[in-house]
C-alpha cells in the first residue's frame, strides 16, 4: 500500500474534528456530531458521484432508509405504540442493540441501492439524475405517509442517543477507509476510467454498468450507515431527509472538490463547520473576547452565498479534486 499518506489526510481531519469536539462544551458538541455525520454522508456520495462522474440525487433516500431501519428497531418496545401508533405487528416486537441496528441500516442501504441500481445504472447523464431524484421522491413520500412501518410525519423520538463523539468519529472513519479502499481497488480504478473516457474504458473491456452498480451499492451502504448514526444522534423527522439535505450534501461535495476523497471530507467539514459556527452565533457566542450575536437566519443565508461564491471563484472545488500529496508541503 504505497501512498497511504493520501488516506492520512482525511483520517487526520476527521480525528482532529472529533478531538476538538471533545474539548468543547456539551451544547457545542451537538454541532461537531452533526458535522461528523455529514462527513459520513458526503463520503458516501463521493464513492458513487466522485468516482463515476454521474450525479445522483437519490442518496439521501438511502440515508432515510438507514434512519428508518435503525430507528424503528431501537425505539424501546414500551414506547413504540406511543410514537408509531399504526406500526405493523412484526415491527412492534422486534428490537436490536446499537451496533446491530447500525449494521442493519448499512445493509438496508446496500440492498435497496443494489435493487434500485439494477435498472437505474443503465442510465447516464441527466436521465440518471432525474431517475435517482425519482427514487428520493418515492422513498420520502412512502416513509412520510405510510404509518404502518414508521412514525410518518412525527419525529423518531426515544431512539437511544448512542451517537456520541466517538461513535460518530468511528462511523465517519469507517466510511472514509471503505471509500479509500474502494477507490484504490481495481473496481474503483475501472470506474474512474469510465468517468474519464467512457468510450475508451468500454473498449478496454470495462463494463460501465457493472462498475457503476457496484459503486452505487457500496455508497448506498455507507449512506445507510450514516443514516443509522444520524437517528442515534437526535430525534429526527423523515421529512428533514429530503431536498435541503440533498442540496447541502451535494454542495459540500462539489465545494470540497468532487474528484477526491479529501475533497469530500474537506467540503463537509468546511461547510458543516461554517454552518455550525453561524448557527451557534445566532444564539450568541464569545469569540476572542468579542461577543457575537447574529440575527436568526444569517446561517442559511451566508452558507448559500458562500457556496455560490466558491463555485464561481473555484469551480473545481477547494481541493481541486486532488488527494493530499507530499508535494503540497514542499511548495
Amino acid at each position: 500500500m504505497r501512498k497511504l499518506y493520501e488516506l492520512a489526510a482525511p483520517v487526520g481531519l476527521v480525528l482532529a474534528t472529533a478531538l476538538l469536539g471533545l474539548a468543547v462544551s456539551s451544547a457545542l458538541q451537538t454541532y461537531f456530531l452533526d458535522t461528523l455525520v455529514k462527513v459520513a454522508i458526503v463520503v458516501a456520495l463521493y464513492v458513487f458521484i466522485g468516482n463515476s462522474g454521474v450525479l445522483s440525487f437519490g442518496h439521501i433516500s438511502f440515508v432515510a432508509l438507514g434512519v428508518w431501519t435503525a430507528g424503528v428497531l431501537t425505539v424501546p418496545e414500551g414506547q413504540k405504540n406511543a410514537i408509531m401508533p399504526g406500526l405493523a405487528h412484526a415491527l412492534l416486537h422486534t428490537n436490536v442493540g446499537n451496533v446491530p441496528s447500525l449494521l442493519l441500516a448499512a445493509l438496508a442501504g446496500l440492498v435497496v441501492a443494489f435493487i434500485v441500481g439494477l435498472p437505474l445504472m443503465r442510465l447516464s447523464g441527466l436521465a440518471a439524475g432525474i431517475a435517482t431524484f425519482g427514487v428520493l421522491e418515492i422513498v420520502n413520500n412512502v416513509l412520510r405517509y405510510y404509518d404502518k412501518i414508521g412514525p410518518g410525519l412525527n419525529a423518531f423520538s426515544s431512539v437511544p442517543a448512542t451517537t456520541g463523539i466517538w461513535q460518530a468519529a468511528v462511523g465517519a472513519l469507517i466510511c472514509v477507509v471503505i471509500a479509500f479502499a474502494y477507490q484504490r481497488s481495481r473496481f474503483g480504478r475501472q470506474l474512474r476510467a469510465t468517468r474519464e473516457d467512457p468510450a475508451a474504458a468500454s473498449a478496454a473491456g470495462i463494463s460501465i454498468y457493472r462498475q457503476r452498480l457496484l459503486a452505487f451499492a457500496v455508497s448506498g451502504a455507507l449512506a445507510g450507515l450514516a443514516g443509522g448514526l444520524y437517528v442515534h444522534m437526535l430525534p429526527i423527522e423523515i421529512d428533514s431527509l429530503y431536498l435541503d439535505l440533498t442540496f447541502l450534501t451535494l454542495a459540500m461535495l462539489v465545494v470540497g472538490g468532487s474528484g477526491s476523497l479529501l475533497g469530500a471530507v474537506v467540503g463537509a467539514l468546511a461547510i458543516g463547520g461554517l454552518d455550525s459556527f453561524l448557527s451557534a452565533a445566532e444564539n450568541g457566542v464569545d469569540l476572542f473576547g468579542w461577543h457575537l450575536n447574529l440575527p436568526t437566519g444569517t446561517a442559511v443565508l451566508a452558507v448559500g452565498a458562500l457556496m455560490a461564491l466558491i463555485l464561481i471563484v473555484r469551480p473545481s472545488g477547494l481541493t481541486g479534486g486532488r488527494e493530499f500529496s507530499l508535494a503540497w508541503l514542499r511548495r
Partner: protein
Amino acid sequence: MSVSWQTLADALSLGGIYALMAVGIGLVFGVLRLVNFAYGQLIMAGAYAIAYASVWGWPSWAGILLCFAVVLALTTLLDRVVFRPLRTHSPAVMLVATFAVAFLLQSIAVLAFGQLGTIASSMGSLNQPWDIGGVAIRKIAVVSIVVAAVCLALLQLLLTRTSVGLHMRAASMDFRTARLLGVRANRVIGGAVLISGLLAAVSAVMLTARNPQVTPIFALDDTIVVLAGVVLGGLTRPIPATLGGFTIGFASGILGGALPTNQSQYLPTFLFAAVILVLLVRPNGLFVRGGSAERL
C-alpha cells in the same frame, strides 16, 4: 374512476403552465447546457411581487407589471453574476451553483417575508367558476390554457421566423459550430435567458392565481415536477421539452383528480414511478427521435 370536467380543465391548465415553465428551462439548457434549478425561486419572487402589490392595495395590472419587473431583473442579475462566469464549466458544477442560488433566494425569502407566507388576494376573482355549457369551470383554468397556447405560439414564431430564433436553435444544436458561423454568443444567451425570465413571470402570475398562498417554497414542487417532465420529454429541443412539461402537468392533474382521497398523498410516488419507467425505456426523451443522450 371518473374524471370530471373540472379535473380535465385543471389538468389541461396545469399542463399549460408546466409547458411554459418547461420551455423556460429548456431554452436556457439549449444554449448554456445549464439546468436552472433556481427557476422555481424566480417564480416565487414574482409571486411575492404580486402578493405584496395586493397587500399594498395596488390594482392587479400593476401587480402583474411589478411581477414582470422583479422576475426580469432577477433573471438578468443571475445571468450576469452566476451563469456568465460559470459558462465554460461542467454541467454538474453549474447545476450545483443553481442549487446554491435557489437555496440563497429561498432563505432570503424566509428572512424577509417569513415562513408563513402572504396571500395574493388580487388574483382571487380568477378562481371564481365560469359557467360553460352547464359545466362550472374555474376561470383561471381557461385563462391559463389560453395564455399558454398564445405564449407557445408566439415562441414558435420567434424560433422559426426570426434570425434570433434561428441563432438560438443553431446554438442549442451545436454551440461551437454556431459561433464559428457568426452567431453571437452573448446575444443568443441573453435572448434565451430573457425569454426564460418572461415565461417565469407568466408562470408566476398563473400559479399565483391558482394558489394565492405565497410562501418561500412556492413553485418548488412544481419546478421539480417540470424538471422531471423536461428530461422526460427531451431536454435538448424546445418542442419535446414543452411536450414533456405538458404531459407531466396533465398527468399529475388527472392523477390528482382521479386518485381516491386516501391515496392522493401518494401522488408523487405514482408520478415519479412513471417517470423512472419512461426514462428506462426512452432515456433520450419520450418525444425525441434517435440522437445520443447528454452526458453529465
